[in-house]
């Protein structure tokens, strides 16, 4: 694995891990879904780097595309499709959600 690939890998890893943390910490659900799809995207790229083009394609199609689509649709149906996260606290360290309907 070349030097450049190593750096790309590092960058991807950092991005993915921080996106994963964001998924849990960020207040806005839409942002969380977006962060989740960033994780999937990073994963797809890593798969590509790991000489797994089939898996990369699938991950891109399923993880980034379909899964995000499902989650986004679900957000709408759940009534969580709000761009401002101020009212909803779904914070990792909060135990109670003030806003019941999300």
């Amino acid at each position, binding site marked *: 694995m070349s030097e450049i690939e190593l750096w790309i890998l590092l960058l991807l*890893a950092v991005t993915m891990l921080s996106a994963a943390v964001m*998924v*849990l910490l960020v207040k806005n659900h839409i942002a969380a879904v977006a962060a989740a799809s960033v*994780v999937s995207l990073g994963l797809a790229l890593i798969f590509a780097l*790991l000489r797994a083009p089939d898996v990369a394609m699938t991950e891109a199609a399923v993880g980034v595309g379909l899964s995000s689509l499902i989650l986004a649709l679900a957000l709408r149906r*759940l009534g969580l499709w709000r761009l401002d996260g101020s009212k909803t606290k*779904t914070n990792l360290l909060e135990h109670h959600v003030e806003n019941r309907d999300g």
Partner: protein
Amino acid sequence: MIPAVTPELILYTTAIGLIAIGLAGVVLSSHLFRMVLALVIAEAGANLMLVLAGYRWDAVAPILTSRAEPAAMVDPVPQALVLTAIVIGVGIQALAVSILIRIRQRFATLDRKEAAERMDAEIAATLGAPRDISQEAPLGERPLPTLPADQINMRGDSP
């Protein structure tokens, strides 16, 4: 001693890190939707782990371009497994989301604790049984049994 930054360190850290973050998320989230998201992340980590199992230095993707040279290829089996695992993951995710929608409609809440409480209350109501523990004071019921002493009929005590 700080270990040298090698690809395997990065990759294993990413994979296991995703699993750990997902686990922590599932454990700590107070919102059901976030629990599902956390599950998705943990699954991604497991998938990465599986692909790592088949990686080979300086090998090519497992696709034959011509019949002549069987160059060193990465292991195709884990890749096939991951293909399966990804699709399984999305199936479960879709199901989870549709159940979420129903919960939201029934209970008007997606908070984990509230949903659990509502579930308990509904189970208790449908089963017609008294709830095992009073809600206001957990473990607050007198632990001494309601011994049917009058029924068991112990006439006279033993010394």
